[in-house]
């Protein structure tokens, strides 16, 4: 939990950022021994200097984004285990950190398999459910909001999400649609409308299922939380994220689909823009309260449909960037750093990113030209990327070593985090070690 200092209102954005990073850096960790504690402090200090863009001894290599699956798969863990058997991941994860001594901690995302089953979740399929056991989890696009519903969404995003989107994508939650409009609960008799659903069998059945699902979730979180604490306790700091997306990607990924949203730019531009605008305050609130709750100093954006080629530069600026920028600037004001995981290539968008204030961004690239990144962005922001998944999968150890060495050389003097361009399932221990050790002197 992050507690604001008393003089928060007088603090500048960078002072607030410092306060959040201080709290994250000094959060209590149950160290297993003094050596682990010393290692943790050295690692987090280096990462902190990188976040602060201050001189430091060397870049770090972060295996999380690329290798988070491989590090358990190498010990025979499969996709189904990652979704359902979280306790099975603990040993392999501790072993990996011990053996490879990475600069940061890494683990697969905590997919709540049993809970997803209980909610009858539609927008993904996963191992042990509809995918074979060796696969983890995959998105399936659907149209969960019709083009005609944009206006309804923009008028009240929360209400739309609760009563239309959630019931469609998680049929267990269908009874939510029975709820009244909350802001009209005012007079004593309005309590009747507020409470009626709670007395009806379908709603009560839903509540019962949700309580059971909640119990399952708590069990899983206890296991995953314990594993995380053990990894930290063994000397490995995490990067500190809350996941978020841009307004355009929330609409595109979640309710309209890739083809749907890209054609909406022509068919209903004003509705689309109004919906993106409506998202802005919702996201700002959501990220600030998550960061306050769990103390993470960064918001991690997974960026999809604004990449080069998806839309023209004019469309990018109008539909994608304008509302996204508002969110990032508001978070910056609150001292929260935006970590951008930029999928695909962003060669045409670097100048847009360059408009953001100094230290407001960590830019993690996949296919973007890293030489231009160095030129255009590395004075202002922390840079991460971009060892290819293809190299980790099908390249040789020497090729991995050479690619990493090039990056280290290129970003000499910058604040740089060695990462992969995207994740992969298969590599070898030797290649992963070459990656992790590439930054060590």
């Amino acid at each position: 939990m992050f507690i604001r200092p008393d003089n928060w209102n007088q603090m500048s954005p960078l002072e607030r950022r410092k306060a959040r990073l201080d709290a994250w850096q000094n959060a209590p960790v149950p160290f297993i021994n003094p050596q682990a504690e010393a290692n943790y402090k050295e690692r987090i200090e280096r990462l902190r200097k990188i976040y602060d863009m201050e001189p430091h001894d060397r870049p770090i290599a972060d295996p999380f984004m690329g290798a988070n699956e491989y590090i358990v798969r190498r010990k025979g863990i499969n996709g189904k285990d990652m979704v359902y058997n979280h306790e099975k991941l603990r040993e392999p994860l501790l072993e990996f950190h011990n053996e490879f001594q990475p600069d940061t901690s890494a683990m697969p995302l905590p997919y709540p398999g049993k809970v997803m089953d209980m909610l009858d979740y539609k927008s993904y399929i996963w191992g042990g459910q509809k995918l074979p056991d060796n696969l983890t989890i995959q998105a399936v696009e659907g149209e969960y909001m019709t083009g005609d519903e944009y206006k309804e969404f923009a008028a009240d995003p929360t209400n739309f999400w609760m009563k239309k989107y959630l019931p469609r994508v998680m049929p267990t939650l269908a009874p939510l649609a029975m709820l009244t409009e909350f802001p009209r609960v005012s007079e004593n008799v309005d309590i009747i409308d507020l409470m009626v659903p709670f007395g009806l069998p379908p709603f009560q059945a839903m509540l019962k299922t949700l309580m059971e699902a909640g119990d399952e979730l708590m069990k899983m979180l206890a296991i995953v939380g314990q594993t995380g604490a053990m990894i930290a306790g063994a000397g490995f700091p995490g990067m500190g994220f809350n996941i978020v997306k841009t307004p355009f990607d929330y609409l595109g990924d979640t309710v309209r689909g890739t083809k749907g949203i890209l054609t909406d730019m022509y068919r209903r531009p004003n509705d689309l823009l109004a919906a993106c605008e409506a998202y802005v305050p919702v996201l700002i609130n959501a990220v600030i309260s998550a960061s306050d709750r769990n103390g993470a100093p960064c918001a991690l954006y997974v960026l999809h449909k604004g990449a080069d080629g998806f839309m023209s530069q004019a469309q990018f600026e109008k539909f994608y960037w304008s509302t996204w920028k508002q969110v990032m600037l508001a978070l910056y004001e609150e001292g929260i750093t935006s970590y951008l995981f930029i999928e695909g290539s962003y060669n045409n968008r670097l100048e847009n990113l360059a408009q953001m204030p100094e230290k407001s961004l960590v830019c993690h690239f996949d296919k973007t030209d890293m030489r231009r990144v160095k030129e255009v962005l590395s004075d202002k922001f922390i840079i991460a990327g971009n060892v290819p998944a293809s190299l980790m999968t099908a390249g040789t150890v020497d090729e991995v070593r050479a690619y990493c060495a090039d990056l280290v050389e290129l970003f000499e003097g910058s604040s740089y985090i060695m990462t992969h361009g995207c994740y992969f399932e298969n590599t070898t221990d030797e290649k992963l070690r070459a990656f992790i050790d590439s930054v060590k002197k």
Partner: protein
Amino acid sequence: MSKELIDAIVDMREEDAVKITAQLLDGGTDPLVVLDACREAMGVIGMRFETGESFISELILAGEILSQISAIVKPRIQKGGAEKKIGKVILGTVQGDIHDIAKDIVGFMLDVNGFEVTNLGVDVPPAKFVEAVKSSGAKIVGLSGFLTLAFDPMKDTVAAIKAAGLNEVKIMIGGGQIDENIRQYTGADAYGKDAMAAVALAKSWS
């Protein structure tokens, strides 16, 4: 009028394009002339894509405009005007992968450049590629894939085509994480970085 239709499509004025099509047909224009206009418009859009002036958003919308127009035009065509094609290409996204946007763009560009494209869709198993090559007699196969999990199905598909004795068939691969490393890994004949590369490869093999 044909010119107006071409402009409407190229400028992404969807409703106008459909309206003009109806007006043309009602005014007695030969349906084949309408289709020619569409082809010309798609050629312009394809050219702009090549030079980086057109984007996925436009190609998708153009595809949708085109299918609305063909729905109006097709029933009025007596006999299919057989245009001459340079060659046949079998195209699909490999097994386990459902990313189809890039594959459809590759199909679109091959089509406007004069190839007859059989699009097998997504999550296509190796046997289905083999079957399609055999039944069509195509000499070119394009495999698309975006997942690292697609590397092995690509390799299996290349192997299945070779195992079926279709040794004269040329295979190109492409998609997000695919590069020269993966070409070697899969044993494909070539890797194409974008849809223009797909066209160049197909032309060099025809």
